[in-house]
């Protein structure tokens, strides 16, 4: 039954007899391309200045010129080092462990450098301490080569020297009247904390305020009240049996993220068991998409749900005030929690101290071993109250000096305008910034700071887990890191490196500095004592009552502000890789937008029409909160959005120090009132239509099914494989025969794939959370170009690896089964789709070239530019390709990408490949493709070849796990596994022989080398 589910990718597909969908199943475009209109139009042809003869002249001339130019090779200069650093061998990559800590993303990473240039970020899996690394972490290497960075210190907008800046600021600090305030990002750095304390001691009247643009204040407050130190509860879902999330997107950026590796481990069925995940939420999030059961609940309902769970588990009540349907879901969730016992946990994203206190209380009562409060998470330290007080004080004129480090309050504060006003009353203002952003523009002094790949530092991930940051390149510009500057201003002669080393050597915690720098992460105790309130054991009494009384917003929409996978809080908004990364849920690039439910959209008359070339448009709305209005926000109708709620992403709409192409979206921070993600707002439709660059209808598999396979845990455990993961069969001599039986249902001559290596890639649909890390890793490994919003809209994105998102129809398989059985044959199709519209299930499916052993693309290439390798890779020789695009046409998976334009050194595509700085990120082992050639996933042949060569040179056998592709390496959930199936001990061989294994569109008999593992959902009720 499983594979009979109907999958759909857009709202349009659900409309009965939609001409658009039918057309798209047959054609590449919905409408005919109006060539006749142009060519048949005599007037426009005559008005053209270029005659046919001119055209021929141009062709002749350019051919002659090109061939003349080709005759003489250019003189190429090679400049070796004068004194070559010992560790650098040209052509050999070096790896350094370091830590990303930009205030929003904290992750221990491995940096690949070539000839001294960092070119790729990889997961640091060395020490077994997983900190998770999503798309933004992988893309951060490109932010190092950002053209819009501040290149030198500035005084009042003019470039200056560090000596001048130091002298003037020191003068200012000595003569300051009023408080000195340090407003910083969360550094979570023991050494920095110590340093700031020394700075305070020197100047006396110093206040240090930590500010997180996207606040976790509620969670921090609740935790601090209960456990006596400011941190967040740390969760490890590896052993989880039941996870109930009330509005927490813990696979996304909730409380700093990084929970997906553990979660994914619990999701893979082992001995017939896997975790059960129930999600109550309003926006469709990554967590909701992965959940076994997703219950739509508006923010006010979420509060009530949490209060009810608290009531059932802690309070011992047997009823709640919830509506019957919701109460039923809550009761079932509570049963699951009880069943899971200490292996279950509740998490919540409700931005209320009360709610967070309840969560801690519930988990304590459950005795949850998943929650760790001893070893709290330190990567969020922001204090919303202090920030609000600061803005008041600034306006009152009591702040003498403001030093802003790593944050951009003039952009990201809800009351940014008050902050801007307040700045006028501050005598001395210094911005420590990588960009001349909104805040830096307001400050007298800009102390240019380096990127984290150019800095030293330490990071306290959790109370006992630390990471070290080390420079991987010499500073590109005349920058000095925040800590070094503070050291100078404390008149300490030491460099921060010495200071850092000193901090840790004094700690006498018994570890070797060099090995700690080498590993990047270690466990220990902080050498710096942080002031704690020490008061623990705050009570949650009354909290449940207050929460349960939350009123639904009458006549208004309940807005949930969220952060997108690509941009997060917006620190890396000038990063074209991230801008072009499709949102996992909406598959939209280069935008933020309001997500709204279908009934609400109908009520407001909002639509998402598909235009002639298959691209999507959207209406605009104006959003109003109190006296604030944000105009012209585009709208996307989001299946699964809770009725009465809307979603909007933070981090967009920046205007300063950001390239024009990337000034997209609207700034939602002004309505982030009191740092609360839940707001009640009103909407009204505005005029105009927005053009989305959405990859949604693109790459449709022309109506073929058998793409995603799903089943339930119950069926998986009880029925045999044929039932839930059948081998596709076709008729041969009127007998059902499995696809691919040589001589019968196989017309191909097989390659001998038993000799040497044969590479396979397995993707576990159960473990894939859609985080997008693999997509970015692929970009940086393979020099994939960025094409820009307009081109994405024309479906000309160059992504070698895309993560398809499929919605499926019913709430549960059981229900769907019943529905289908009760309905007449012809009604089935439409009914199942429409009925389930409002709360679809979601499946993510990463799709790259499937490297078919019987590849349809290879046979149609007229110049044999694409051919098959014995190691299973479908190879693409760019220099041979003449660009007929037959291969893309014949590819059933639609994974081939055509270079419609020259994307490097071309002002029309002014992204990283168009400037010297941005090109430094290119991988020298992979060629940069030119216009007019086809390209696609190579299964990272450069990496497999390198692994083989290293083994040959060392004269040894290759161990399993050595072969990696960029995507398999980036995947911290373990969903993507790569290896050699001719190696009998390999993990990938075990996966190939796994019952869950299937090939996408297996009925075509293409015999791909990429395989998928059937998605199993745990729908078991207690």
């Amino acid at each position, binding site marked *: 039954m499983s594979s009979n589910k109907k999958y759909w990718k857009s709202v349009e597909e659900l409309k009965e007899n939609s001409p658009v969908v039918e057309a798209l199943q047959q054609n590449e475009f919905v409408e005919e391309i109006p060539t006749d209109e142009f060519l048949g139009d005599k007037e426009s042809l005559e008005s053209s200045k270029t005659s046919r003869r001119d055209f021929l002249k141009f062709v002749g001339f350019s051919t002659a010129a090109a061939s003349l130019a*080709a*005759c003489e*090779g250019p*003189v*190429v*200069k*090679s*400049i*070796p*080092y*004068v*004194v*070559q650093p010992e560790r650098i*061998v*040209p*052509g*050999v990559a070096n790896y350094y462990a370091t830590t990303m800590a930009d205030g929003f993303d904290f992750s221990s990473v491995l940096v690949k450098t070539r000839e001294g240039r960092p070119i790729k970020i990889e997961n640091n899996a060395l020490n077994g301490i997983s900190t998770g690394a999503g798309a933004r972490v992988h893309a951060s290497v490109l932010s190092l080569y950002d053209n819009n960075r501040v290149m030198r210190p500035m005084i009042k907008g003019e470039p200056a020297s560090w000596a001048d800046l130091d002298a003037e600021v020191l003068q200012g600090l000595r003569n300051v009247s009023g408080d000195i305030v340090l407003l910083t990002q969360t550094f979570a750095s023991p050494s920095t904390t110590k340093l700031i304390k020394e700075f305070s001691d020197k100047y006396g009247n110093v206040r240090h305020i930590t500010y997180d643009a996207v606040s976790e204040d509620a969670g921090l407050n609740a935790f601090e009240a209960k456990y006596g130190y400011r941190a967040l509860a740390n969760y490890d879902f590896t052993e989880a049996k039941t996870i109930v999330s009330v509005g927490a997107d813990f696979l996304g950026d909730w409380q700093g993220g990084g929970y997906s590796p553990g979660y994914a481990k619990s999701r893979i069925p082992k001995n017939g068991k896997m975790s059960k995940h129930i999600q109550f939420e309003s926006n469709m999030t990554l967590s909701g998409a992965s959940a076994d059961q997703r219950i739509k609940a508006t923010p006010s309902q979420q509060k009530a749900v949490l209060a009810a769970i608290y009531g059932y588990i802690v309070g011992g009540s047997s009823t709640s005030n919830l509506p019957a349907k919701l109460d039923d879901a809550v009761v079932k969730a509570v049963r699951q929690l009880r069943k899971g016992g200490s292996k279950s946990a509740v998490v919540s994203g409700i931005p209320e101290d009360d709610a967070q206190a309840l969560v801690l209380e519930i988990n304590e009562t459950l005795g949850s071993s998943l929650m760790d409060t001893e070893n709290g998470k330190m990567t969020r330290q922001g204090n919303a109250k202090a920030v609000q007080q600061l803005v008041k004080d600034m306006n009152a004129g009591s702040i003498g000096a403001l030093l802003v480090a790593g944050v951009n309050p003039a952009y990201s504060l809800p009351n940014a305008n008050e902050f801007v006003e307040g700045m006028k009353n501050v005598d001395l203002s210094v911005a420590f910034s990588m960009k001349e952003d909104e805040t830096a523009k307001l400050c007298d002094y800009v102390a240019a700071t380096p990127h984290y790949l150019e800095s030293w530092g330490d990071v306290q991930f959790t109370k006992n887990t630390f990471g070290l940051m080390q420079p991987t390149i010499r500073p590109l510009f005349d920058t000095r890191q925040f800590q070094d500057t503070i050291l100078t201003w404390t008149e300490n002669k030491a460099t921060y490196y010495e200071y850092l080393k000193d901090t840790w050597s004094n700690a006498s915690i018994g570890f070797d500095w060099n090995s700690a720098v080498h590993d990047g992460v270690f466990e220990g105790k902080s050498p710096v004592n942080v002031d704690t309130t020490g008061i623990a054991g705050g009570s949650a009494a009354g909290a449940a009552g207050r929460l349960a009384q939350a009123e639904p917003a009458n006549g208004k929409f309940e807005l949930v502000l969220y952060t997108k996978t690509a941009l997060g809080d917006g620190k890396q908004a000038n990063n074209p890789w991230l801008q072009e990364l499709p949102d996992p849920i909406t598959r939209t690039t280069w935008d933020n937008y309001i997500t709204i439910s279908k009934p609400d959209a109908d009520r407001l008359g909002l639509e998402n029409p598909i235009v002639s070339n298959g691209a999507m448009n959207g209406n605009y709305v104006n959003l109003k909160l109190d006296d604030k209005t944000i105009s012209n926000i585009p709208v996307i109708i989001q299946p699964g959005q809770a009725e009465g709620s809307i979603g909007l992403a933070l981090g967009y709409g920046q205007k300063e120090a950001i390239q024009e192409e990337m000034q997209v979206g609207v700034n939602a921070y002004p309505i982030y009132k009191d740092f609360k993600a839940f707001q009640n707002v009103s909407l009204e439709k505005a005029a105009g239509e927005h053009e989305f660059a959405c990859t949604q209808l693109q790459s449709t598999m022309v109506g073929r099914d058998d793409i995603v396979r799903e089943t339930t845990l119950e069926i998986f455990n009880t029925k045999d494989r044929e039932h839930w993961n059948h081998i596709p069969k076709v008729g041969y001599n009127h007998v059902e025969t499995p696809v691919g039986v040589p001589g019968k249902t196989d017309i191909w001559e097989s390659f*001998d794939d*038993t*000799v*040497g290596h044969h590479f396979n890639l397995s993707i576990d649909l159960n473990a894939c959370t859609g985080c997008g890390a693999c997509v970015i890793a692929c970009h940086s490994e393979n020099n994939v170009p960025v094409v820009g919003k307009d081109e994405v809209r024309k479906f000309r994105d160059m992504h070698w690896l895309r993560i398809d998102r499929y919605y499926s129809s019913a709430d549960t398989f059981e229900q769907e089964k019943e529905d289908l059985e009760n309905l007449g044959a012809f009604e089935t199709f439409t009914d199942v789709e429409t009925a389930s519209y409002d709360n679809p299930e979601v499946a993510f499916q990463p799709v790259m070239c499937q490297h078919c052993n019987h590849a349809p693309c290879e046979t149609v290439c007229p110049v044999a*530019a694409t*051919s098959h*390798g*014995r*190691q299973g*890779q479908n*190879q*693409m*020789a*760019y*220099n*041979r390709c003449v660009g007929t695009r037959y291969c893309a046409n014949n590819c059933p998976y639609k994974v081939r990408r055509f270079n419609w334009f020259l994307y490097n050194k071309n002002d029309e595509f002014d992204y990283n490949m168009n400037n010297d700085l941005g090109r430094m990120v290119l991988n020298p*082992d*992979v*060629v*940069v493709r030119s216009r007019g050639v086809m390209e696609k996933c*190579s299964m990272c*042949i*450069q990496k497999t*070849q390198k692994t*083989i*060569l290293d*083994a*040959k*040179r*060392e*004269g*040894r*056998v*290759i161990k399993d796990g050595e072969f990696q592709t960029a995507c398999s390496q980036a995947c911290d959930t373990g969903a993507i596994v790569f290896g050699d199936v001719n190696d009998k001990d390999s993990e990938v061989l075990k996966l190939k022989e796994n019952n869950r294994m299937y090939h996408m569109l297996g009925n075509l008999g293409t015999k791909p080398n990429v395989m998928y593992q059937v998605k199993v959902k745990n729908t078991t009720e207690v």
Partner: protein
Amino acid sequence: MKKVTNRHSISRTLLLAVVLLFSIFNSAYAQEGEGDSSQTEIPADAEEDSEGGSDVQGDVAAGKDLFNSNCAACHKLYKRSTGPALHGITDKYDKQWLYDWIHDSQAMVQAGDPDAVAIFEEFNKVPMPPYPQFSEEDIDNILAYVEQPKPEPKAPASAEAGGADKASGGGGGVSTEVILGVLSFVLLLLVVILFLVNKTLTRFAKASGVELPEKKKEKRTPIWKAFAQNQFLVIVVSIVFLLGAAYFAYGYLMQVGVDQGYEPVQPIHYSHKIHAGDNGIDCKYCHSSARVSKHSGIPSLNVCMNCHKSISEVAPETATEEYSKEFYDAEIAKLYDAVGWDVETQSYTGEEKPVKWVRIHNLPDFAYFNHSQHVSVAGIACQNCHGPVEEMEVMRQYAPLTMGWCIECHRETNVKMEGNKYYEKIHEQLSKKYGVEQLTAAQMGALECGKCHY
């Protein structure tokens, strides 16, 4: 009367020719002489001169041997190096002091001998190794050698005299050219004479009234017209012409982008012949990254300085007819300039000027080539692809570096698998499959597009 004038004219021409002939011979010899005089004399007969010149008694030849094997690494005769210049050393220090110093310099420094301390300080506290094995006689011999008078470069004037002698015994190559020149001149002269004789005889005949047979002019079709009328011939010729044109066009196009023989002038004249050939330095000493990397790597200048710190000039024997010693020494000076090495103080100044070498082997970006695969794994000699580098004074591209050339080698070359654990399994599988013991690179899959193009 007329006849007389004619005869005269011939003899006059002959005379002129003879004069011309001599003048050519003269100029040829003159050049020879000039060419020689530009070279300086090598101090070949220095030994005899030293007899009276020096006050140090000893065997110069034995001293030279001892000096070259023991001292030359750090000392030069007339220039400072790691240690001081040794010429004139006996004037500065007395003999006993020198014996002591050479036997154990550090002892003297520690004993606090002021001269010893001064020189130890002056040369960056680099201790001179003790030579207790030297007898006083040995030291005398060395001192005798170093105290020979400095040979002056011989003045060009002295060369002039010898110039003529050398020219008389001149090289055979030059004389054949001269002989050929003379022969061709004589032939030319004969043609002229024949023409003149013919003219004179005709005139005689006219004057004597002899009737010369007139040439009959027949009406014949011109050859081009005949050709144009013969269609068969036209077709054959045009086919041949077209084929020929196509052949040459193809040949021309196939060499576009092939830079075989490319021999650019480099910013520093680096002679592979001297380094890899004469001195037998292993290629991978300088191109060390070829062992582990895809690039062979142009050596960084600090690699040059490993040796050139103490080699600031070439030996006189290194100079060739084409490149003089001064030329080579100037090139080494360029290296010092680039790397920021001050010869006077024997220290780095820190002023570095990276050298912009002209790249000779330019593979296109879309072709991936890995040196370590070929050098370390396959153990192929560098010369297989780069040619007799050890004989190249100026480096040039030896191989065409075309894809056909790569493929050819991959088809024919057997992969070196012995003793490499990586190959054990695949060798077993493939040798069974192909029924051979030795496998070529092609059989290993080295002809697949994706192995080099990605």
